[in-house]
């Protein structure tokens, strides 16, 4: 009887937690969707189905310059300024890149909800703080100025 209880406890410890499984399931959908979008939009970009904001032939001439100079020459936006330019083949690629970079925030939202429901306050706080950190990074408040 005691041995059975110990085995059950051991089996439980070996299994991933419910949150881990939810996180994994969300991640797998997001990642492969991101990669598929990335490959598709890149094909659209290279084949010229949509016009590019920056001429393809110009890029090799200026990718050796710093990012500030590059943006200035190409009149490209920073931060989320690419969103209004999604009709351009080159900026369309940011859809896949952004999806990949947003997946962790989406997964953390689900995690935080789970931890709050379980009243696991330490991990709720950690998850919420992480969402804040990632959202600040993604918002462009910190990263888009100072060229």
């Amino acid at each position, binding site marked *: 009887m005691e041995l059975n209880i110990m085995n059950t406890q051991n089996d439980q410890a070996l299994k991933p937690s419910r949150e881990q499984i939810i996180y994994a399931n969300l991640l797998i959908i997001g990642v492969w969707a991101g990669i598929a979008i990335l490959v598709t939009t890149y094909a659209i970009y290279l084949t010229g189905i949509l016009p590019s904001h920056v001429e393809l032939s110009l890029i090799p001439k200026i990718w050796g310059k710093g990012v500030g100079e590059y943006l200035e020459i190409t009149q490209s936006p920073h931060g989320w300024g690419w969103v209004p330019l999604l009709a351009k083949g080159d900026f369309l690629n940011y859809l896949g*890149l952004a999806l990949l970079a947003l997946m962790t*925030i989406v997964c953390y939202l689900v995690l935080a909800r789970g931890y709050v429901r379980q009243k696991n306050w330490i991990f709720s706080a950690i998850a919420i703080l992480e969402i804040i950190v990632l959202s600040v*990074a993604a918002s*462009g408040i910190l*990263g888009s100025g100072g060229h």
Partner: protein
Amino acid sequence: MVNIRARSAGWLFVSLMFFVSSCPSIAFAAEQAAGAAAGYPWWFWPIILFFFCLVLGVLAVMAGVGGGVLYVPLVSGFFPFHIDFVRGVGLMVALAGALAAGPGLLRRNLANLRLALPVALIASACSIVGAMLGLYLSSLNPDIIQVCLGVTIVGIAILLVSSKNTEKPVINNQDAIGLALGLQGAYWDDGARESVEWKTHRTLLGLSMFIIVGLLAGMFGLGAGWANVPVLNLLMGVPLKVSVATSKFLLSITDTSAAWIYMNRGCVIPLIGVPSIVGLMLGSLIGVKLLAIAKPKMIRYLVIAVLFFAGLKAIDKGLGLDFLG
């Protein structure tokens, strides 16, 4: 049938080894061509970059290092791109690889969410600071970043040579912080056919180390598996398998914050980024298949030698000495 499969895998391995051994010549050819960038059509570079990254992906898996740590020094050393773009794409490459590996590691309970969450919070916050500092230094003078990157890469190569990881550290007493955060668990070891229980110690010191890890990851766009594993395993006493898996999963969080900083600054050019990401991911898939027949130890030494060279090359380039061409 099995024989044919093994033989074709063998041929694939031999061809890849040939390609790998000719990697420096490809890189040098790319570098030579960089001088005459205008002479090549625009599609030349994405194709070269794709195949280069494919090889890096195979190498990275076999050597047990992340893609970013090979990508940044090699591409910045041998391709004509400014280091701002190389670091931005390097982070996206490391992020995509970590995101793809994450689900499998979490489901097998090798990557531990409870262990990853507090560590990721510290590392990701610090990687934002590192990214901003790196971009600031690069705007002052990109050579500063080149030299610092070179020194870090040489340091990583030394770390890879010298660190003796412990497969299953024995921890008798868990410290109070580890206990409060519930940093313990168990996993099934297929090789030993046993379940392995683990817990952390020196948790506060370990967590503090991730301040430096995050800073370096953000500043150089390297990913940080090379630093995560020794801290988790040697310092905090987490078993090697859990350390490696949790480290890989951690990168998906740490690199996200730094990647956004670089992306928002405009450092991710799709023409460079997409072939790098796809090439490295495909290379990693091939690498996993080849692991069964390859000799990872030999590849690991090859990668360490390449890292030494890439680090010295970055220092050489940053200082403008031109000793290494």
